[in-house]
């Protein structure tokens, strides 16, 4: 699936988008896999209360299932308007 990062999550991880091969069944499992990769991921995902997630471009919870998901995005709380 495609994993996207925005705002400081993007800066901390160092890229806006990557292809991830995963069997993670929910968002939290995917986060755990990413955290295990490298320090920059562990750092970006250290405080989940400061993160939001979208699955296939819809806001979702961390326990949202990923079966069939094509795109997951991580970002800080939004500051539009």
């Amino acid at each position, binding site marked *: 699936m495609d994993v996207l990062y*925005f*705002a400081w999550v993007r800066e901390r991880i160092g890229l806006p988008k990557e292809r991830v091969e995963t069997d993670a069944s929910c968002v939290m499992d995917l986060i755990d896999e990413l955290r295990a990769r490298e320090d920059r991921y562990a750092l970006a995902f250290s405080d989940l209360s400061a993160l939001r997630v979208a699955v296939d*471009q819809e806001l979702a919870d961390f326990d949202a299932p990923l079966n069939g998901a094509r795109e997951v995005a991580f*970002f800080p*709380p939004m*500051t*539009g308007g």
Partner: protein
Amino acid sequence: MRILVQQEAFDAGAELNRFSAPLQGMGAVVSFTGVVRDTAQQDLQVMEIEHYPGMTEKALQSIAEEARSRWSLGDVLVIHRHGKLGPNDPIMMVATAAPHRKDAFEAADFLMDYLKSRAPFWKKEHTGDATEWVASKQEDEDALTRW
């Protein structure tokens, strides 16, 4: 219903007139324009707005449809810019038209509350010697519980 996500500047007055011209039987038109405010230190140079292409349009569409389902509205307009803006540049605007003023006001207020916290935009301030992501405010999140 017109939803625009764009890098270019927009002319709020011209957009208000374009929105209002075709309306029939709408007694009330409310517009809100959001403008880049300088920081407390008065040294904001650039306000950079990042967004999530694809999701942004869907989120704005869904927020506008929610407003139309909750209030009796003749039309809704949402414009939101991204990219690099300067102090006092318009960032975004919403407009609502309704037979009655209460609907137009409430719907515009609702749109703004949801745009702030549920549309995928992130602001980064470039000041004299630093850049900083604007932190979300608890009061903006709390505002959603009004609706």
